């Protein structure tokens, strides 16, 4: 066990996670593990074509198959119309959300759900799918963002009119939205530059790749209430979406989050949940639907492919004078790509006087995109950070020195408006520069070292917690954030710290929507920050009551009682002293137990910066890029549980490596994804990687009681650019397309020869 820094007793240590034993013994219950008497199994029929009108659905043969209990289509759902609902992390058009669960009238991508069956076994349900006859009228499709933006491209939505700079243009197109961020005068800035580099980039659609496929079990009770057990990043957002889609009040729906086998942003939107509910309503029995891996790839939200153009200029001294970007992101079937955050992040690491950014949200015949770890930022950083590297090369400046010279710092205004509070960009670059990795020689042919930086906002949002004191001096903590990576423990540790207890003295439980106050999704790197804050506030509530109770026991005024490090003392009588545990034993006899509670919506979010260093070796004959050494440096604020902070950094870096080198949705001319399996969609394996070294730079966030900053997302941002820069140093070619797969690398190497 490590010792803590900054005077904390619990924060900064590495206790065993509270849910650990269940998860290493197979006892933890995930989405697909839900079992109950009378359970029916649901399966989804999906569109075989990327674009078309649904003329007719005939399920009579399926319904006649023995063991089939019900079939549902969009006709079984209320038609929500164009209602925009605020669902906690962004607004959504309910008509689109509903059509993404079961297509209404049209299909917009291969794999879109069209109908669903409930049957006595999964196999019978699968047989029944083959018996549902759907008549389609195919329409021309478009799966690439650049082509989708062209005049004359097949249009996905009859009613989609481009909004430009906040105003409808009246033009029907696949461009849902165009927006702009401007600061200073870029023409003037480029005129002042000694070096200007302008490049175009393409990035492929990639999937979050969580190992647990989506799973949901619904029971529509005879009393009209609905219970849904599912693997989700947010039980309350499931409840809100279900309420809107099924046209029920939220109080009629209980969402019970199971353990979740990875999400990374992809398990926020509902897919199966309302469908399982509709099947349960028809059959009067609980219905479980699980996806297979192909359905996960073809039917759930990946993160967008994109086209990005970046132009940056610097003067002779290496100071950036201007930067311009054009970002067009594929939203998939419905508007709502993360081009907004991408555009806000693209130059966010730098202090640049003149910036002009145009962003375009574009629909294409691919699955509707979802959040994926720092959504939008990785695509953007791939572009800007490789252009920065080229400028450094032209000016013959060390790339880390260049970043130090231009680093954003407290007071820097980002192009989209906000002025940074205390941030750690400079500290991460300095730490990378000092690291033995950066200072070690890298010998051998076809080897190169690359660096890149990245930024992500992190977010706050709403969290609730209640905590009750047990007679044995422990505290039961009830919170609403599903635990994807050890957050039960990082939240419990903050409560323990505040009360002067040990982490093991807190028993954290993730609750359903009837058991805890509203809590937003596990996303935006917010849980340790915001739900941890709720736990901290619940601890303050307990403290106040413990002080009052001690005062009652001693017959003194509450202001005469102090609480420090888990010990209550009477200020007027040194002999009067009770530990937390001793007072806890007396609670039942002195008025009953003590329950602390809190609901928070904190501001004070601290943005996260990361600087990564990577060494690669490129095989010029096969194009294979081998990662020899990888170091991830990050401003993590105060690390609550350092092992799980390192884990976020390592996991994020490796997802970024996969995005950089291998992962992509491959499409054929018919608009079909041709690699919808883990064999062909090539995520990194243990054999592809070295150890991932981490350096936690702890720049405490002044906006949080314990200095906590979000840590989960930013580590995915630098890897593609860092790898591209390393590949350039290794073999002298600059790759501008992701993934930098062996074929592309070989082609570039041969073209150079």
């Amino acid at each position: 066990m490590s010792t803590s820094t900054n005077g904390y007793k619990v924060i900064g240590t590495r206790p065993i996670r509270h849910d650990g034993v269940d998860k290493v013994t197979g006892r933890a219950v995930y989405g697909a593990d839900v079992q109950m008497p009378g359970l029916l199994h649901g399966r989804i029929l999906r569109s075989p074509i990327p674009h078309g009108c649904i003329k007719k659905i005939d399920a009579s043969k399926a319904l006649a198959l023995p063991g089939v209990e019900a079939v549902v289509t969009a006709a079984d759902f209320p038609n929500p119309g164009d209602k925009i609902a605020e669902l906690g992390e962004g607004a959504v058009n309910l008509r689109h959300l509903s059509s993404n669960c079961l297509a209404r009238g049209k299909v917009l991508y291969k794999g879109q759900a069209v109908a669903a069956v409930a049957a006595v076994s999964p196999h019978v349900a699968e047989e029944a799918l083959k018996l549902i006859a759907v008549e389609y009228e195919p329409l021309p499709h478009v799966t690439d963002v650049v082509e989708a933006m062209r005049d004359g491209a097949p249009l996905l939505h009859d009613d989609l009119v481009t909004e430009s700079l906040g105003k409808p243009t009246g033009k029907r197109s696949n461009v849902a939205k165009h927006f702009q961020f401007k600061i200073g005068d870029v023409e003037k800035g480029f005129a002042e530059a000694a070096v200007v580099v302008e490049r175009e980039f393409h990035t492929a659609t990639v999937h979050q790749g969580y190992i647990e496929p989506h799973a949901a079990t619904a029971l529509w009770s005879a009393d009209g209430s609905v219970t849904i057990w599912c693997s989700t990043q947010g039980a309350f957002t499931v409840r809100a979406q279900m309420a809107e889609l099924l046209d029920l009040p939220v109080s009629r729906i209980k969402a019970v989050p199971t353990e979740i086998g990875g999400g990374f942003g992809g398990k926020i939107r509902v897919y199966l949940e309302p469908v399982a509910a509709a099947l349960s309503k028809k059959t009067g029995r609980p219905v479980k639907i699980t996806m297979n891996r192909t359905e996960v790839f073809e039917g759930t939200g990946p993160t967008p492919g994109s086209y990005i153009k970046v132009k940056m200029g610097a003067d002779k001294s290496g100071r950036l004078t201007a930067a311009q970007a054009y970002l067009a992101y594929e939203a998939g079937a419905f508007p709502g790509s993360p081009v907004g955050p991408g555009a806000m992040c693209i130059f966010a690491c730098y202090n640049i006087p003149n910036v002009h950014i145009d962003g375009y949200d574009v629909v294409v015949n691919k699955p509707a995109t979802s959040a994926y770890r720092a959504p939008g930022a990785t695509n953007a950083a791939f572009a800007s950070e490789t252009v920065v590297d080229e400028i450094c090369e032209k000016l013959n400046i060390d790339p880390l020195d260049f970043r130090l010279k231009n680093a954003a710092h407290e007071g820097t205004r980002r192009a989209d408006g906000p002025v940074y509070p205390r941030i750690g960009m400079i500290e991460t670059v300095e730490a990378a520069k000092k690291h033995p990795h950066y200072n070690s020689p890298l010998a051998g042919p076809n080897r190169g070292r690359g660096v890149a930086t990245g930024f992500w906002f992190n977010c706050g949002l709403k969290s609730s917690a209640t905590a009750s004191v047990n007679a044995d001096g422990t505290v039961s903590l009830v919170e609403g954030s599903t635990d994807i990576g050890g957050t039960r423990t990082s939240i419990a540790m903050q409560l323990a710290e505040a009360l002067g207890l040990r982490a093991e003295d807190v028993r954290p439980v993730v609750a359903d929507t009837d058991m805890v106050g509203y809590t937003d999704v596990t996303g935006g790197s917010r849980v340790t920050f915001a739900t941890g804050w709720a736990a901290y506030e619940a601890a303050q509530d307990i403290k106040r009551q413990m002080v009052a109770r001690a005062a009652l026991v001693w017959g003194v005024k509450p202001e005469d009682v102090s609480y420090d490090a888990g010990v209550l003392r009477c200020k007027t009588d040194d002999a009067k002293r009770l530990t937390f545990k001793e007072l806890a034993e007396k609670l039942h006899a002195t008025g009953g137990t003590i329950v602390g509670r809190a609901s928070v919506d904190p501001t004070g979010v601290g943005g996260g910066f990361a600087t990564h260093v990577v060494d690669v070796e490129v095989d010029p004959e096969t194009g294979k890029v081998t990662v020899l050494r990888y170091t991830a440096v990050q401003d993590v604020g105060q690390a609550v549980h350092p092992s799980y902070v390192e884990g976020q950094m390592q996991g994020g870096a490796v997802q970024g490596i996969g995005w950089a080198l291998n992962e992509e949705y491959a499409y054929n001319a018919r608009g079909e994804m041709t690699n919808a399996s883990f064999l062909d969609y090539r995520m990194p394996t243990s054999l592809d990687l070295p150890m991932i070294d981490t350096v936690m730079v702890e720049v405490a966030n002044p906006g949080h009681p314990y200095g906590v900053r979000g840590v989960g997302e930013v580590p995915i941002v630098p890897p593609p650019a860092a790898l591209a820069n390393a590949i350039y140093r290794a073999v002298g070619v600059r790759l501008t397309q992701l993934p930098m797969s062996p074929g592309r690398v070989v082609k570039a190497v041969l073209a150079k020869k």
Partner: protein
Amino acid sequence: MSKKIHVQTTINGEPAEFLCEPRQSLLEVLRDELRLTGTKEGCNNGNCGACNVILDGRLVNSCLVLGAEVQGKTVTTIEGVAPSQGLHPLQQKFLEHAALQCGICTPGFIVAARALLEKKPNPTEAEVRHWLAGNLCRCTGYDKIIRAVLDAADLSFRARANGRERETISQVRGEFP
């Protein structure tokens, strides 16, 4: 629905019997018929290792084995890895090294790593990486998993050398609670 097959087998050291359809995989039988849901489905086509079990001493993807095939054989699942008291050294080391985040791949990794350590009690990092290349983890980047397995190997190697194979890690090393 086709006629069900009666299968007698040994699961986690105990005799077991079940009825299954010819088309049901061992993974489905374990999860849906025997309610041993510690074995996970990640891909259902042998690419991710989340459903790893040990079948007659051999590591297999249970999604690629039919339920009917285990007649007369011996199956070990994640539920059979720990001794009746405490944890297997691999399980303990996964916890100490924070080698899991979401935990869905963890049962498969632990079963696979156990199969490795039975063949090769003291593997190198490269050997561990090679053996576990059939198990996908999307959360950790593998770093802490590899460290946990190497650490557990070191420990069980020494424990075995001392003839104390069945002891848990906490018994072998006094420092753990």
